[in-house]
């Protein structure tokens, strides 16, 4: 992908942030949301777009390690922050969270999956021995229409630290 071409924007102010561990600086129209910049300008389309009101979680990214809806985040709000998208998480190899989704059938159409992975990543960053309830609560902002959460429950079982899950 030729990123340089896409960084040229006519208006707005320059902003700098760290995207997937690399510093980035670009002109941003103040009316643009983070999801617009990611998908349209940087072609990072692993971040999906679906409800655009922060309800479905398909556009989830990590901002300073916390899961945020990039449809509810204005691009300029990311000045100086660390933003990590699904592409960043997948850069080197498949994360254990992604591995679990693959092995447990935690997705079908896959459109919600990057957001699911991000939310779970954020949760596990903060909570190293989560209960099943903690894990489920971490995914309440992510909707899946295909799986009925069957496979996603099986994914969560693998990250659950409490006794209930080690039966």
């Amino acid at each position: 992908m030729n990123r340089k071409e896409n960084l040229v924007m006519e208006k707005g102010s320059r902003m700098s942030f760290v995207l997937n561990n690399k510093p980035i600086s670009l002109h941003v129209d103040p009316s643009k949301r983070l999801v617009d910049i990611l998908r349209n300008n940087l072609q990072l389309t692993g971040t999906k777009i679906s409800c655009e009101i922060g309800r479905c979680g398909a556009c989830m990214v990590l901002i300073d390690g916390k899961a945020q809806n990039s449809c509810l985040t204005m691009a300029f709000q990311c000045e100086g922050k660390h933003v990590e998208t699904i592409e960043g998480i997948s850069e080197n190899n498949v994360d254990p969270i992604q591995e679990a989704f693959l092995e447990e059938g935690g997705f079908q159409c896959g459109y919600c999956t990057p957001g699911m992975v991000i939310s779970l990543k954020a949760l596990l960053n903060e909570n190293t021995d989560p209960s099943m309830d903690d894990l489920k609560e971490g995914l309440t902002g992510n909707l899946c229409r295909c799986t009925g959460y069957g496979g996603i429950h099986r994914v969560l079982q693998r990250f659950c630290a409490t006794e209930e899950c080690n039966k």
Partner: protein
Amino acid sequence: MLLDKNSAKDKWRIRPDGKEKVTGSLQYLTDMTFPNMLVGRVLRSEYAHAEIKSINISKALQVDGVKAVLTHKDIPGLNGFGISNPDQPVFCSEKVQYEGDALAAIAAVSDEIAERALKLIEVEYESLPIVDSPEKALEKNAPLLHPKGNILHETTYFLGNMEESFEKCTHIVEETYETPRQMHTYLETEGGIFVSENGRLMVYAPTQHGYKDRMQLSRILALPEESIRIISSPIGGSFGGKDELNVQPYGALLTLACGLPVKMHYSRWESVVAGLKRHPMKVTMKTGVDRDGKLLAHQVRILSDTGAYSTLGGPVLNFATEHSVGPYIIPNVEIKGKAVYTNNGVSGEFRGFGGNQVIFALEGQMDRLAEKLGINPWELRRRNLRGMYDRGPLGQRVVPTNGALEVWDAIRKSSVFYKNKEEHQPPWIRKGIGLSMAMHGSGLGYGIPDPAGGQLRLNENGKIEVAFGHEEFGQGLIGTLEILLQDHFQCEKDDLEIIIGDTDKVPPSGSSTASRTTNMVWQALNRLKPPFLQAIFKRVTQMTGVAEKNLQTGPGGIWTKSEKEDIPSLLVITYKQLAKQGVDDLLFSTQFHYPVTPDPIIGGHYLYTCTSVAAEVEVNLLTGMVKVTDIHHTVAAGPVINPMGYLGQIEGGSIMALGFTLTEDAVMENGRYLTKNLDTYLIPTIMDVPSEQTVDAIEELPEGDEFGPRGVGEVGSVALAPAIVSAIHDATGIWIKKLPVKPEKLIRELPFLQEREA
């Protein structure tokens, strides 16, 4: 077999499309970009019903950055689409019939500019009275919505004698059941990219049937079908909702007008307004039994709100009519159904296809009758259940199936019934258990073209290549094909190439709907394999001298058959070496038809799948909230090919049905949607579902059955609602007849509240 990772053993496979999906690297069609790409937008109606006096696009055309503004005047061919009846205008010219009607489309260099230009299109309307329910549409003086009247389709079915048989009944239950306007809620909203290239139109847009989109577009654009190429997979969910055209006519017309690529991607709000929904139905059933609990008479009235246009409203009503008898033997039956036009949103194809609504009603009847008789509701079903060789619900011959009895029996062993009932519950929580069952037809049914086909070849790169005109919308088609092919050829995954979703590369295979795809690819491969192997082995024999009968396919190439266990097979030739000798004579294709009943009953099905469901609920007496805490499914659908896919279909279909039962309703008032996004249209979250569902797959088929694995895309979604409703009754004594179950309504009916208010 209880279906899970352990029981599936080596058939539990990571999906071929999995890594791309979990890493976000898979490009959905709405993720694509092209150089100089424009944004396409559609102007929707301001009214649910109005005459159009004038449309003035001149101001919109003057906006800098606007490349095209199109209206009905710019359609070269047919101004209409619809799978079974093309009565939905691409652009309205004289009248708008619902809130989602399109009047114009704009292509502009940015979404902001397109949006601004949309607001500058001036439309003069003269409002007309809104017909917002089928009842109003059927009134004598109702405004006429379509030239032939307000009834899209009627069905009738008679067997025996109604009046006489009701006189003989000991108990009769008559009830009207209502079901919601359920939204598919695919996470990827409708969209696509349209490119005009070297005199051809490239359409990158999700659909469940690429060739059918090509046909419909060719009609609208007045272009030969061959000049249109439909690239239609991968898809971010469909569930029936993307089978009909959506963005395609607009994107295609815009790119042809501008000569530049055009991208369309509906916002969720536009998807709600313009997208299809499940038909809301009012189903009245009057059902009678004798003192022994034998069903004697069953009278059914179905009123279906098909919305502003046809799409598949007729076939959905046919399906509902057929499924309102279910797996039961009833000597006297009278069914009358009406699908009626209104100014509401368009209803169309949706997983279950009209079965879900009537099965909710029918199973409700069985439970109520059992209560009147004072017998166990499951026992009542047993007394009336069809046997292996009984005819189908409308008297048509069907492929012998013992599925109904098998699922009836199997669910009784469900662990739902053996839980520790001593579990401590707060006094305001009441638990209940409910059961239900259904039989569900697959394929399109008698009288409807239902072609299938596929292609198998050794390709130039030395891969065993299959091509099917089916689509991958998440169900796991690619994984199923990989498993089938590896079973057939004992080869490596790397030896395979699977091609779907591109009309330039695949043969017509019919639609990926009606739980038909697994069955059709299974049948196609069975037909293709023998001639393919014969041709390959013949070639290898010519080249190597090894006799044909001593050859077999295997990893990487053709191997000798080992006659004794201690003599290893030897690699004779690799697929790549074989391909170098030419591949033209190693291509085989097949065309056939989905199996159909010989009896001329329009839409009547031949292949049936059966299911039974047990659900456990907790009703909160303080809030009226219902929580489903356990769900068990048994499914009799023949052999399981792809366990992960099968389990996923049942689990996913089931939770879609949970939403249908408890929370989902696209509410319309005066022809307008009130639930505009996912903050008010509530699909289940992970907190709303049981942490585990059990799926028991009954794989045995009657001896001599040649039809193989039946599809399970729909059957998981058809029978949960009545099980939940039965469980609520078990917990509270209250019978629900309208879905979704409203806590505020339920709580008013709770006995202790009524006592207090009295």
